[in-house]
């Protein structure tokens, strides 16, 4: 199964917590408004610069913290996928369950710099930095997770399975 994403990357550091991406005050807003506050303190103004198809690359322990649906905000901003040296497992699950592709790539922040173009294929674990030519592979994602992403996330899967009415 192919789950691929290619785009311009934005590189962030280690231990980015969910309060940095979906702060408490933004929970009082609708998702399109809340999305304007992603990384509000870490990188002010970023949500004006990010474009549809871009990719977020982070360091270790990406997404420590809350269960709040940060991935929905990334999708709102048009982010095509997440890459990190290490994910918090709840944050990783939330991405998969929202249908947002995510790849664990050790040394991701050394391989990629802001503005590079990266290409990632979860189906076979391959990645490539189109700007520098560096490439490699990580373990492929289990089929069950690929299937959730390909379906568009668990809510969409529930629609397919008849648990939820289609919009």
């Amino acid at each position: 199964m192919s789950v691929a994403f290619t785009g311009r990357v934005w590189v962030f550091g280690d231990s980015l917590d969910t309060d940095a991406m979906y702060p408490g005050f933004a929970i009082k807003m609708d998702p399109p408004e809340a999305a304007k506050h992603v990384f509000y303190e870490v990188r002010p103004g970023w949500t004006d610069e990010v474009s549809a198809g871009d990719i977020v690359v982070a360091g270790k322990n990406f997404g420590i913290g809350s269960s709040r649906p940060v991935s929905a905000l990334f999708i709102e901003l048009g982010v095509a996928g997440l890459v990190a040296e290490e994910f918090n497992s709840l944050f990783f699950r939330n991405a998969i369950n929202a249908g947002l592709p995510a790849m664990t790539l050790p040394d991701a922040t050394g391989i990629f710099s802001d503005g590079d173009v990266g290409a990632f294929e979860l189906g076979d674990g391959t990645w490539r930095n189109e700007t520098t030519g560096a490439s490699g592979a990580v373990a492929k994602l289990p089929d069950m997770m690929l299937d959730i992403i390909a379906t568009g996330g668990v809510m969409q899967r529930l629609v397919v399975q008849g648990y939820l009415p289609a919009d």
Partner: protein
Amino acid sequence: MGMTMIEKILADKAGLASVSVGDIVVVDVDMTVLIDMQFGTQWKRPNRIHDPDKLAVVMDHAVPAPTIRDAAAGPAARKFVADFGIEHFYDVGQHGICHQVIAENGLARPGEVLACTDSHTCAAGAYNTAGRGLGPAEIYSIMCTGKTWFQIAPTIRYELEGVTAPWVSGKDIFLHLANTYGDAPNFNLEYGGSGLGGIPMHDRRTIATQGAEVSADFSTFEVDSVLRDYLTSRGVADYHAAQPDPDATYSAVRHVDLNALEPYVARPGRVSRNGLPVSQIEKQKIDQGFIGSCANGQLEDLEIAAKVLRGKAVAQGVRLLVTPASQAVYREAMRLGYLQDIADSGAVVTNSTCGACFGYHMGVVGPGEVCLTSSTRNFTGRMGSSEALIFMASPATVAASAIAGYITDPRSVTT
């Protein structure tokens, strides 16, 4: 090959004889807990659900409603509960922070899997339950199907040995471990050892809850007589305890000398590798103290706060907020006189809610302020302004510091 505590529970719930690190298993979820936030503007009524008896709804994060948006979640939750015949419903009046409500109503049972839309669901590990916080979409999915999947992560075991000194609490044990060993993303934490019996249930809950702050998957405690007595008092019977096999494989076994511990404080920004003994911190003035949350709003936490505050006064210029973890805790603390002592000191006792812990309502901190909290997170912006500093310590340390006006070792103001 032997299994760790969490491997035993997940193997059992997957219908497998054994599991190993790296395996992906599909498990039956014994109890799924939805919170008020789930019923906000994104809520959609399902066509059908798996089993109403395996579902609970707890109103906790934003009750009584601070915004019109939150107020709209109430009727949606009540309609859902009525439509699907869900008996485990804890509406405003019977409410509380979900992990407290789960515990006091006996919904967290040894050897079972519990899922909830809050990242601190690992709290249930204090009761030998495989508790896991999951996102709202996944919780919705489990509500419908009764199942989810886990990948078996390696387990780190803590052997607790010795006895803690007076005024050293579960918070201090956790802050010591977080400071010494740092983060544990994609690891399970398992607690046991010869010193376990000396650690009361409320302290175990604090430690289990805060597994989230070191990024761990599950945090579970062994079953002993202290837990068995607690479960009996909550009406929990006929459970299957999950004890680790003697030949279980751990990625690390860490021995903790409880005798050597003292009260700790974590500096702002993160919990892991960011602390020091309270006795060693520079003179740090505070504007707000907070005692509450799923980690430290328990009855015993309020008892400790009352003991420190009794007959004393909160310092001029300091606000001390105390949030009981549930309405039941609130009522019991009132009956026992704890709330009287706390309020008499000049502290503010609030309604039970997640409120101030996640910077949502009732106690948000402003730019330039310093807060010392006994809640769960000290992340930048967590409790309000990103220009506020959040230190973290035990309820005893927060209470002692509120009296002094600066971060203070509770042993220096108590006898």
